[in-house]
């Protein structure tokens, strides 16, 4: 049997936002098919609004880069009823101009670029058409924003990088990057919270623990936070690693 595609059900003249199904028990409201700052804001704001609505049958919400995800019990609320709720909410305001989340912070995280700690710097720089030195200057000189937390606990997707960094993921997975690995693809950085296989290229290494299950604040970064990955040496990083889970990172409130 040919599947019925998960068809968009709500679009304005530009085709966005639209609602698609996720498996049997989820709906996804997407504000674009590429990452833009307004679409990212819209997703974060819509998720907060859905949680505030507290609709029966809705179990959990999250965001990806440009989408808000709603997981629900399809035996408790039908797909069509939930879509109607969402449509009304979408029509109620201009989501693309929504405010960023409250209480944002600026983090400065010491990072070793390249060396045997981060063996794919050279390859990634080449893909971006830069020397290693240019690549380090470009990444460490960009203040990036946490666009979403996902994949693994507390793990941020950050952006947006210079257009030169619009490089694809690898076709074959790297067997394993360590916790704290800084990786790059498609104008974004991902800082890994766990050791895992990945298609992203490993260009830097930090000693920052993103997920601290035993702590009062198990998840450290929040969407909207901003980060600078400041260059350091392997020797200094080794010392900062001993100092605790922040690995030498500092933070301040963004006002």
């Amino acid at each position, binding site marked *: *049997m*040919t*599947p*019925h*595609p*998960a068809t968009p059900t709500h679009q304005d003249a530009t085709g966005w936002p639209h609602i*698609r*199904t*996720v*498996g*049997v*028990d*989820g709906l*996804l409201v997407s504000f674009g*098919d*590429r*990452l833009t700052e307004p679409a990212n804001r819209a997703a974060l704001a819509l*998720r907060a609004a859905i949680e505030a609505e507290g609709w029966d049958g809705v*179990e*959990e*919400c*999250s*965001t*990806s*880069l*440009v*989408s808000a*995800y709603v*997981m629900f019990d*399809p*035996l408790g609320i039908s*797909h069509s009823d939930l879509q109607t709720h969402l449509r009304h909410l979408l029509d109620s305001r201009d989501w693309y101009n929504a405010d960023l989340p409250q209480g944002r912070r600026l983090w400065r995280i010491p990072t070793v670029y390249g060396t045997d700690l981060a063996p794919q710097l050279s390859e990634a720089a080449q893909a971006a058409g830069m020397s290693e030195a240019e690549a380090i200057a470009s990444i460490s000189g960009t203040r990036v924003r946490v666009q*979403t*937390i*996902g*994949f*693994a*606990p*507390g*793990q941020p*997707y950050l952006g947006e990088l210079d257009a030169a960094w619009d490089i*694809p*993921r*690898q*076709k*074959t*997975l790297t067997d394993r990057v360590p916790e704290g690995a800084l990786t790059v*693809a*498609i104008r974004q950085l991902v800082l890994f*919270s*766990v050791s*895992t296989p990945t*298609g992203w290229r490993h260009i830097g290494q930090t000693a920052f623990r993103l*997920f601290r*299950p*035993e702590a009062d604040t*198990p*998840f450290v970064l929040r969407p909207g936070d901003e980060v600078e990955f400041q260059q350091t040496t392997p020797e200094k990083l080794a010392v900062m690693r001993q100092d605790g889970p922040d690995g030498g990172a500092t933070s301040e409130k963004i006002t």
Partner: protein
Amino acid sequence: MTRALIVHRAGPGVTLQDQGRPGYLGFGLSRGGAADRLALAEGAALLGQGDDLAVIEMAGLGGEFEAGSDMRIALTGAPMRASIAGTRIAWNASHALPQGARLSIGGAEQGSYGYLHIGGGVDVAAQLGARGAHLAAGVGHAVRAGDDLPLGEDPKPGEVGQGITPLARFDGGTVRVVPSLQTDFFGPDQIAGFEATDFHRDTRGSRMGVRLIAEAADPLHSDAGLSVLSEVVVPGDIQITGDGTPFVLLSECQTTGGYPRICSVLPCDLPIVAQAQPGATLRFAFVALQDAVEAERRAAAHRAGLRDGLWPLVRDPHDIADLLSYQLIGGVTAGTELDQEKAQT
């Protein structure tokens, strides 16, 4: 005295599991929980207790356990070779485990994940709202030799000797899927080829997901998929990596991902994938969303009715090899009855 189950030996994939940790998707922590949720419901029915208690999940291989005090156990999921004090006991059944008795659980004879349930559940401290291990996230740890697992209060001490007929799910088969948000990244020919292919579960697999191998099929690919934005991922999604290999994601999967997903397995059929042993054949069949919701409704009704479907283990003395041990340890059966049970299931 603290009630405890003493662990003398444990296979490498033995962990505590429960219904997982809802509420943390937005922080990148997937719900996790038992690979085969139906096995939780079956064990809960056998012991007459809630299905929210922590149980021992055994990937491929069990272990050796000792009762610190009199307790009840139930065994569900992938059938494994099990004995109490050297006498073989039935799987998919509840049994008494008297204080000091040794319970030995060997390798899976079929399927991948076996479950050991204990009356009152395993009562370790909850972390982020649940007791189960989420090893991919670094929450909790594997069950190891030397552990004393504390137990909760047993709601129905003494109620043992019940059997349950499990839904067939231990040898692969056809799995229902629905289109999902990225299905249209794949052309109609690829979808048709995907549905027509016999896949085999690879030896590489974990609670995060299982890898599938296709014989002589054109590799699946999506040009759009390689540079698409990372998007929400849920258990059951079938992800196609850059070299065309499908992975079916399970309870401990990531929460977002960049590889395109061709479809998503119905939650009620996911145990078939989780339980398929290496080499087992899996096929996938698309169903409409409304049919999938109906299937979930029927599955929920099935789980709710499990307690009514219990049957007493065979009690005819002629069938019992060792009447004395039967009386001491209710629910112990002879080997021939095991064969009869298999014929039923």
